[in-house]
């Protein structure tokens, strides 16, 4: 549905993005992840036709975003990072204007607008002036104008930035509801967000693609150990000594914040070896109380940090190689 090939955008001598390539399939929800200034917004703006790339090209639904810009723009709904609306219009007036600009059929306009209003939870604000709306509602209206007319591609630049936690949860629900209907690209620098909403992640840093994969695979591939968290009702030294003897255990680490009488620890096991059953059996054999046992998912935060700072051996190879490996 979306294909970008070696996109480069140069602002004077500064390259905002260089050689960015990726593909997004129909119906996928893909997350652009990266720190501020990684080139997420630049890439999105190129896809939406705000400006063309310096070199490379991008195709949306079969239309080149530069040479067939009008057709491509007809397919895309865009939510800009800095959402700016006409403050002197009412919500409904504004959406009517957007519907006209998008060239939606006059016949279905009412239902289109009503659908966009209700899917973004702004229907009860329809007659308010945009200037009097709170930040959260403006943000939602921004999403509403993007989804208006059910475009086949949605490009949302940091849709949850600046919202309160409840609104963030609601926004994520909204994005999840779009899955299947539209192909969605969202950008964020918050990791749980991609874990919560995306099928795949494209990690960008300093204008380059660092990695492309599912949040799950990315997590899996970049670890060389698995970690398991345990809470055992027994004295710490005895537990540690006992667990160390289990084959396949690489290290045992005590967690400092544990209540009286409870030993909380994280054990690292060799990758691809699930030792949960062995651990449970071992503790049961010692007749200790087992209060909790769960695998620790390495947070994307940690993965991201390792990719960006090249600390992990997997990421110490050149960016391009990592990209190839992960997208293979």
């Amino acid at each position, binding site marked *: 549905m979306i294909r970008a090939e070696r996109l480069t955008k*140069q602002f004077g001598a500064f390259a905002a993005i260089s050689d960015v390539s990726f593909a997004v399939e129909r119906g996928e929800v893909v997350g652009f992840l990266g720190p501020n200034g990684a080139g997420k917004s630049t890439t999105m703006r190129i896809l*939406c036709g705000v400006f063309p790339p310096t070199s490379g090209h991008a195709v949306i639904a079969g239309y080149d975003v530069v040479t067939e810009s009008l057709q491509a*723009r007809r397919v895309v709904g865009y939510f800009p990072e800095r959402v*700016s609306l006409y403050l002197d*219009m009412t919500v409904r*007036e504004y959406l009517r204007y957007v519907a006209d600009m*998008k060239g939606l059929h006059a016949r279905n306009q009412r239902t289109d607008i009503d659908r966009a209003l209700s899917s973004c939870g702004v229907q009860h604000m329809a007659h308010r002036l945009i200037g009097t709306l709170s930040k959260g509602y403006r943000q939602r209206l921004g999403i509403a104008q993007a989804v208006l007319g059910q475009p086949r591609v949605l490009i949302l630049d940091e849709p949850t930035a600046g919202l309160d936690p409840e609104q963030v949860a609601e926004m994520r629900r909204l994005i999840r509801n779009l899955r299947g209907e539209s192909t969605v690209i969202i950008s964020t620098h918050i990791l749980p967000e991609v874990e919560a909403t995306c099928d795949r992640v494209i990690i960008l840093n300093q204008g380059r693609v660092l990695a492309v994969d599912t949040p799950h695979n990315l997590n899996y591939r970049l670890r060389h150990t698995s970690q398991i968290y345990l809470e055992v009702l027994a004295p710490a030294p005895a537990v540690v000594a006992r667990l160390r003897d289990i084959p396949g255990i690489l290290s045992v680490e005590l967690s400092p914040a544990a209540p009286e009488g409870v030993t909380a620890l994280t054990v690292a096991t060799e990758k691809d070896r699930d030792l949960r059953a062995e651990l449970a059996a071992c503790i049961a054999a010692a007749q200790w109380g087992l209060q909790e046992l769960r695998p620790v998912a390495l947070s994307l935060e940690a993965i991201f940090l390792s990719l960006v700072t090249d600390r992990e051996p997997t990421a110490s190879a050149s960016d391009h190689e990592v990209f190839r490996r992960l997208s293979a």
Partner: protein
Amino acid sequence: MKCFVVCRRELRSYFGSYIAYVLLAVFLLLSGYFFYSDLIFFVLFGGYILPTGLWQYVFLDMRLCLLLVLPLLTMRLFAEERKLGTIELLWTYPVRDAEIVLGKFLACWIFFLLILLATVVNPVIFYRFYHFDIGPLLAAYLGVFLLGTAFIACGLFVSSLTENQVVSAMATYGILVFFWFLTWNEEAANERLLHVMLRLSLFDHFYNFTRGVIDTRDVVFFALFVAFFLFLTLQSLGVRKWRGVQ
């Protein structure tokens, strides 16, 4: 035609705020007062020829009012959208740049026609007391219409260059007044240069109309002036394509 959508939104913006009403009121107040004083002058000092005695002064004064008001009307067209950031979304809708330019131009133009229409009340009242030949009056209106259109095109272009509305208005004043003063002091200019300058002077092309004369060269001049600035506006919007700044 998406330009009508753009146009409607602009008009909505003018009439949804004080801008339209204040500009309209000030313009009508000034041009009404000019009309009144010019008429008194004409009657007191015994003019006989209406076109050169009255209309010329009325419309030269109206030109001043337009010069004052129209840049204030055009200054926000693109500057405000840039400042607010609304222009970014505008670029992503399936609309051609030309449609955006035309829509904004059209909105200003409609507002300007409304202003002109409102001033017709002065000669209409006058006509009830004195039946004059309306031909020269129509010629003068054509002139002021063309002049105002040229102001709008120029203001639209300047507005597309900046995100600051004050800069936009001031630069428009600069350009327009410069075109006016181009031939202010004919003695100060080189003779050959003066020949060219007279051809370019916005206001020299306007004088004939005020005296009831329609010269096609003047009409063509204004048409070219408008087309030139609309073309420049389009180019200035296209700049983002290679500079890449919103």
